[in-house]
């Protein structure tokens, strides 16, 4: 487990030190009341690794990545992100959230702020960056997601694909070490999926540590270092994409792949 595979030619630059186990999940359980949603999850992710999590709906994959920045709390086991263990301690939670960016299925942009203000909000108030610097940085990221011309508009004036790209730029503005994607393309019209995936592929190429919950199997094949299949709150199978798609071991995985491909 946890062998870093660097198949991507672009990832040679930025990553000077490759930190092993930047995310460590050990024997983690979660219940909603008496309902056991996540059962004994174990996972270690190295810096620069790209993980894709897939599985049928209700398998707990979204809940799992939401535990990694403590949007959901776990009740047993440990989650350690960048050497900080997630407990009830608010300071730990805040420091983890500063380093972990998240992109949601429904974008969750702030409708009362412009695109640029959305991007600058957290750098200004959390990282205490001067406004001009924050705006300059935000414009860079907006250029990277190819919508610098929309900076002064409000989210409600953009298409779904544009909104999701703004959401990615907003998360990147905090210069996170890790990016979590919670079904980023599920709420999009088909013609907009590609523009978002392109941005994600480009981001993967830059060496960002990424965990994506997605049904986009094409994305998983080209980008992922490992694919994780979850069902019924458990990790059923975990393998590099080449192996996962051509030669799945578990019956449940095979069944899922038949349905989806």
């Amino acid at each position, binding site marked *: 487990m946890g062998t870093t595979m660097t198949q991507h030619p672009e990832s040679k630059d930025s990553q000077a030190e490759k930190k092993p186990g930047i995310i460590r999940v050990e024997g983690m359980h979660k219940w909603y009341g008496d309902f*056991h949603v996540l059962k004994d999850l174990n996972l270690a992710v190295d810096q620069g690794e790209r993980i894709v999590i897939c599985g049928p709906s209700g398998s707990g994959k979204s809940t799992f990545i939401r535990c990694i920045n403590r949007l959901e709390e776990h009740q047993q086991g440990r989650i350690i992100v960048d050497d900080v263990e997630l407990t009830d301690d608010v300071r730990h939670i805040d420091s983890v959230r500063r380093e972990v960016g998240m992109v949601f299925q429904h974008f969750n942009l702030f409708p009362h702020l412009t695109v640029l203000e959305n991007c600058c909000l957290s750098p200004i108030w959390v990282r205490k960056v001067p406004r001009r610097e924050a705006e300059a940085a935000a414009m860079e990221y907006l250029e990277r997601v190819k919508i610098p011309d929309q900076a002064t508009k409000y989210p409600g004036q953009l298409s779904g694909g544009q909104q999701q790209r703004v959401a990615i730029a907003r998360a990147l503005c905090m210069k996170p070490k890790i990016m979590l994607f919670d079904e980023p393309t599920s709420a999009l019209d088909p013609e907009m999926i590609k523009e978002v995936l392109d941005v994600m592929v480009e981001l993967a190429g830059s060496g960002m540590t990424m965990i994506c919950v997605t049904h986009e199997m094409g994305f998983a094949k080209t980008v992922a270092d490992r694919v994780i299949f979850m069902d019924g709150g458990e990790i059923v199978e975990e393998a590099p994409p080449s192996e996962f798609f051509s030669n799945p071991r578990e019956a449940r995985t095979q069944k899922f792949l038949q349905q989806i491909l």
Partner: protein
Amino acid sequence: MSESTIKPPKKYTGPVKWMRTHLFSTWYNTLLTLVVGYVLITNVGPLLNWLLFDATFQGAGPEDCVGEGACWLFINQRLNFFIYGFYPDELQWRVDVMFALLAVAFVPQFIERFPGRKWLGIFGMTGLPLIGYILIPGGILGLEAVESSKWGGLMLTLILAYIGILASLPIGVLLALGRRSDMPIIQGLCVVFIEVWRAVPLITVLFMASVMLPLFLPEGMSFEKLVRALIGITLWQSAYMAEVIRGGLQAIPRGQYEAAGALGLGYWRKMGLVILPQALKLVIPGIVNTFIALFKDTTLVLIIGLFDILGTVQSTIADPAWQNVAIEGYVFVAFCFWVFCFGISRYSQNLERKLDTSHKT
């Protein structure tokens, strides 16, 4: 498959967990719980004692109210007055019949799947007012006449609210249609009418009805005080009703208007057969809410000298024979209103939730 039998750790389930998250989650929540709990415990006991355990329910007269608690005996003895006002005792069966019919017509509306509740509702809006119009004042069909100055108490409160809402409904519909119409003069007249009535307090309307209405009428023509109040209430209420109905008209999708137009229906048929039935169904919760507001506002008529339920109580608590029964009197009226308003508002909330879901799917 591997259906897990592991239970969550004890810390996270059961009453202990419930109390930890709901009462003692942080230090200030703990403090709040303790303070509020203390205040509750020290006050609920004495309050219950006053209301029930030390209270006097039975007895012959004021001299029996000697205990520490409330003197419900007072309510007991004056109940007839609080319900019927000065309506003659031997004719009160007529009011009782109306109460019963009202209950028959409207209580089933709260019970889903009650057979024929729609027809009962329609009866309550059409036939029942007619029966009431004959039964309560009398004077025809061999019924002894009872003039309106003798009506009072709960009965008067219900009459005001019931007639106010019934009469304002059609006027409200017309005003709403007028405000949505594309004829500028009609629209302007309706906007002015609605906005003026909505801007002024009900008291000024009632004052106006009782002082100015007689001046407006030709000489020799006059209305009883109750009728004047009803006219004022109806005009005022119809402005609010119009706004509620306008909300419903706006919620009907454009396609419905166009479809009805495409069927070749003229304006009145289009509205009457297609748009209004849908819009009115949509705004039932809104109408119920305005009814609750009106029901509470009917108490204002005591200011112009009518004896509604609050008026009857207000006029008897000053009776020197009874020592300090003001609180008992007010608690009694408050309880009557609360039961009505809370029950009806619950009903309209349920309805709203149902309409909400039926619209989304």
